[in-house]
């Protein structure tokens, strides 16, 4: 029972970070109908940014989120303005390829600068944990990162639901042409959405950096997980991505405990294929043809 509870809790905690990654991808897809294959690589850039800030300025990774978030927002905005904006009306495969290419450039540039060695960011609390009782313990860095993701997600919901810009973003996602007719600057909304997506992915990278190996190719697996999360939740649905993230977190930690940690990603991908086959619109998505 303790094992079950333990893996359930770790799953939910890591699921919070996955939710951030998924929400970023789903926002970008919702507003631009573009699947961002560079999402994991943007997360990787966030990890390295945190690593640099930690080793050079000695700022704690959880504090440096305050610097990483705006920097990654800018990075995403520039990416959108310079590259993505040019293929908004291109064929789907060209959009996909462009983002794959951008991802390859990011991971390999980082590899040129930092080499492909694994980096570890060790904080005083990296391996600390809190006893909850009943033989269940919670890893301190995971718990802090979960609290931060929860705060960011809440702020994001508030932003999307209550502010004018947030509503304009949701309107653009619902119907780009209609939004434009209503006087919404859809180009600016696209830049903001991509910036937000990148900032969320980068923040997720920052939050996992104390517990994860940092290396240039780390992005690939997160790109795929981000898809699994968004497809599971329904492409374009923010609520779906939040739920999807937590679900994938739990699935992963359960299969790591009850099957083996080597196979946990396989379980996630098989789940992904099953969702694509039997409920391609996802948990929260409207069925689309």
């Amino acid at each position, binding site marked *: 029972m303790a094992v079950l509870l333990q893996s359930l809790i770790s799953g939910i905690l890591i699921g919070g970070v996955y939710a951030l990654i998924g929400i970023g991808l789903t926002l970008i897809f919702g507003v631009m109908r573009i699947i961002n294959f560079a999402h994991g690589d943007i997360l990787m850039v966030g990890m390295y940014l945190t690593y640099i800030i930690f080793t050079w300025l000695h700022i704690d990774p959880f504090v440096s989120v305050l610097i990483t978030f705006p920097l990654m927002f800018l990075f995403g905005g520039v990416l959108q303005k310079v590259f993505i904006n040019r293929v908004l009306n291109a064929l789907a495969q060209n959009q996909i390829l462009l983002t794959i*290419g951008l991802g390859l450039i990011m991971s390999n540039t980082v590899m040129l600068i930092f080499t492909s060695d694994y980096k570890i960011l060790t904080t005083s609390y990296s391996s600390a944990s809190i006893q909850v009782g009943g033989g269940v313990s919670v890893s301190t860095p995971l718990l802090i990162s979960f609290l931060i993701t929860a705060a960011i997600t809440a702020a994001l919901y508030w932003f999307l639901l209550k502010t004018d810009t947030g509503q304009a973003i949701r309107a653009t996602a619902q119907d780009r042409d209609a939004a434009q007719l209503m006087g919404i600057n859809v180009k600016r909304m696209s830049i903001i959405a991509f910036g937000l997506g990148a900032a969320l992915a980068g923040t997720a990278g920052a939050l996992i950096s104390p517990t994860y190996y940092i290396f240039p190719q780390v992005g690939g697996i997160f790109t795929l997980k981000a898809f699994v999360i968004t497809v599971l939740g329904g492409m374009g649905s923010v609520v779906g991505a939040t739920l999807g993230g937590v679900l994938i977190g739990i699935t992963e930690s359960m299969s790591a405990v009850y099957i083996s940690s080597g196979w946990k990603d396989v379980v996630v991908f098989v789940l992904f294929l099953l969702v694509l086959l039997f409920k*391609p619109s996802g948990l929260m998505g409207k069925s689309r043809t």
Partner: protein
Amino acid sequence: MNKTTLKAVLVLIALAVLLAVPKYVESPYALHMMILLFLSVTMGQSWNILGGYAGQHSVGHAAYFGVGAYTTMMLMHAKQIAPWYGVWIGIALVVVVALAIGSICFRLRGPYFVLASIAVAEILRLSAINLTTLTNGAEGILATELPAFKIGETVVTDFSTKVPFYYIGLFLIVLTIAITYLVQHSKLGYFFQAIREDQDAAHSLGISISLYKNIALVISAVLTSLAGSFYGIYVGFVDPPTVLGLDVSVQIMLICIIGGMGTLWGPMLGSLVLVPLSEALRSNMITEALVKVGMVNAESKVGIFLKENLSHAHVLLYGILVVLVILFMPDGLMGFVKKLALRRKREAI
């Protein structure tokens, strides 16, 4: 002489020249480059049948490449089965894998198909890492000793030089190009292109979508697995990232995208651009050239940095090329050439 006979004569001359190359070229490096070129054309041309003609942009072709490479190598390493028998088992396995993938992925369209194709390749890559008893896991399989190829009692070749590999590679590109040509000029090819242009319209005209998509996939997968088996025995080593990684799938696509999808010459043009460029980076030729011209001092910090790192930069180059091609030449080099020709024609009128 009309155009078709002229073309046929030119192709025959090219083939004769390629057949004669090992007689006059002794440099193993030159032959190595030609073999890499053949491998690249084979991979590109195989993807082209599914991606270029039938319009199903699979980003998971590493699955077929890897299954071919792994099957041949595993049989040779563990059971001492010669690769020219192993290849057939590889093909049989790939057909099974392709049909399984087809039955799952072809129900999906556009981005969902792309995602599913990646997921399948990733499942295979992770399985190759985890099934250590079968595949030797992340360490990969090293098997450089090839048995001699005999017909009856006479030894045809013992694979001690690069020449036999050269001829196998040549055979592979002739095979794939011939198949592509046949597909392009047959009813099958028209069905593929109809599906690519408008799936629903093709369906309403009575073309069985799933049947023809699966035919395109099986042809494409079998040829890709042949390329994979050839890669395995030529290099003598396979491990999960080099034959099943996402990079492999992207590289296979890239050959067609740079050259031009859905054209016979596209994969060849793409390979002619990609292979020399990435080899020049890998063998540090570019750094040496920069030093020779005097742009970079070999002893300086920049020189040492370039020498140490530029050799790993060929994937970076792929990334930059993809971005440039998509932004500026979305139809690839062939599309670019065609556009130029069209403009000239118009100006002539």
